[in-house]
């Protein structure tokens, strides 16, 4: 009511990754603050909404798109990806094959979706189920940093939907990069490629720059 000068952003975020890595669990934890070991397998796509009070004058609304993990649903992903502003790519630290699929998901994303400034959408890598004991992949962070750099991830987090580890942090990281990429002045030459949809496009143009 009294916060009439608040800025509002609406971002569509994708949550993708192989079957059973915990995409739905992460979203349920993030949005509803609860966890169950047996959410039903997502087919097609599902949605959830999360409102973040980003700072004193900014409210961020996140529309999370929970996309089915089985490869064949990938043929539908072009429709799902439309107008997304960021993505989480999730794998399961206890199943190395799901990590190997990460590059495939990233490629799929980048081949189907480009921001208006011509850059790929910001993506954060989530190493989920980190509560489940030792994991082979994560033992050294430097390697992961390297992997992220090579594959164009803006960051990575060890997460656990079960124990509520790092999910908020990962989301803040992604949103931060989205806000930064929005204020990126480089514009695409072709204006008619997939355009991210913004609720309040008039005011968002340089939010990150001015903040400093």
């Amino acid at each position: 009511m009294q916060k009439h000068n608040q800025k509002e952003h609406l971002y569509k975020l994708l949550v993708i990754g192989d079957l059973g890595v915990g995409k739905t669990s992460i979203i349920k934890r993030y949005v509803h603050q609860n966890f169950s070991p047996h959410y039903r397998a997502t087919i097609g796509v599902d949605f959830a909404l999360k409102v973040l009070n980003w700072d004193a004058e900014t409210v961020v609304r996140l529309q999370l798109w929970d996309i089915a993990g089985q490869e064949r649903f990938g043929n539908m992903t072009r429709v799902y990806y439309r107008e997304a502003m960021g993505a989480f790519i999730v794998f399961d630290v206890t199943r190395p094959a799901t990590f190997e699929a990460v590059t495939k998901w990233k490629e799929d994303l980048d081949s189907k979706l480009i921001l208006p400034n011509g850059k790929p959408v910001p993506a954060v890598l989530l190493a989920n189920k980190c509560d489940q004991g030792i994991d082979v992949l994560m033992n050294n962070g430097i390697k992961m940093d390297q992997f992220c750099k090579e594959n164009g991830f803006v960051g990575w987090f060890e997460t656990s939907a079960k124990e509520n580890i790092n999910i908020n942090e990962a989301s803040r990281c992604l949103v931060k990069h989205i806000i930064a990429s929005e204020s990126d002045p480089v514009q695409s030459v072709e204006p008619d490629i997939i355009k991210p949809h913004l609720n309040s496009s008039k005011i968002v143009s340089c939010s990150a720059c001015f903040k400093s």
Partner: protein
Amino acid sequence: QDNLQGYKTQNKFLNKEILELSALRRNAEAREREWQAKYTSLEAKLCQIESKYLILLQEMKTPVCSEDQSPAREVITQLLEDALKAEPSEQPEQAFFKPHLVSEYDIYGFQTVPEDDDEEKLVAKSRALDLRSLSLSENREISTGVKWENYLASTMNREMMRCVELKNLIRSGIPHEHRSKMWKWCVSLHIKKFKDSAVPGYFQTLLQKALEKPNPASKQIELDLLRTLPNNKHYSSPTSEGIQKLRNVLLAFSWRNPDIGYCQGLNRLVAIALLYLEQEDAFWCLVTIVEVFMPRDYYTKTLLGSQVDQRVFKDLLSEKLPRLHAHFEQYKVDYTLITFNWFLVVFVDSVVSDILFKIWDSFLYEGPKVIFRFALALFKYKEEEILKLQDSMSIFKYLRYFTRTILDARKLTAIAFGDLNPFPLRQIRNRRAYHLEKVRLELTELEAIREDFLRERETCVEKRDLISDDEEDS
């Protein structure tokens, strides 16, 4: 003579007595029926009030403006907790015969109030109460039961045949106690050709093969078993009876149809079938749905058939519900993101179980046109509500759950099989053929774009490798 006279009067007296007593009994019976009716309608009313009360509480729980901790809020929180705790005590034996929906599970084994979602809980409970009130206040169900008894009695000594009478009977819903028999009959009706050509022990052979050596599908099947119908008691834990059967049927099918192997969604189809069918019959039921009913490539790697059907559905919606179509266009809502699931798993998890099984009754008898009918009927049922929503977010939010708020199966069925007519199968076939070509082309284009992208990226990486040192220097 005296004796005779004596007996006569005695007899007269006794007869009168009997007449009087039966009159009294009739009276009492009538009164009891009256009481029962009154009681039922009161109970129905109570359910309605309780349901409204829950909704009201829910509304008050998240007030629009107040952030302060007023005492009223505490009271509401307390009331809410009480409301969720107090389960009307039901006799469990009775629950088996009559869907007493406020007991923990319904007759199909589904939880009436899901555990995982707090917010959902209230809504679900209020829905359960509404359903109960609905089933209490309408006794017409009984007449359907009688019709079924009559029909089945008349076919006792001859083979059941497809006919209009049976079709209409099935459209009104198969009673729980006859569903196993009727589903089995429907499946055998469609699958006869396939089954006759199969060698004896075909299913067992497939299953044996599947259990001996894993294929790519088996791992995915395993990952999905407990994620199939976690809210149904037959599938809720690794030791549940349903899980093993579900695994067997899916594994056997993955060997029968390697083109599909396993597609997410098949698990739900099988799980529903297994609630009424034996393992092997459930297998043939899956074969019926995938290989007889649905167009080619519905569940294969491209999901081509599924994608095509969504476009066909869009055409039909624009024809049958033009206002709604325009509304969706205006707010750029791609509702096929939601309806895709309805088609793929024939409404499992999208509608309340009473309606789900009624849809499946007709679906198994009549085939996939029934899916189009009900998908349109669901939209038509809530058309006005959807038209009220004025932005894409709230429309999406509503579309995500509105199907579960529809409880009146009779009304929905009347729309699906009445209001939506005419509904020629030929039209669907034509639209399918038309869209199939288009989607095929698009898929090819998409593949080309992908390859281009990968090639480009390859060269980019090479270039980057060459100049990376310079970049770091600058």
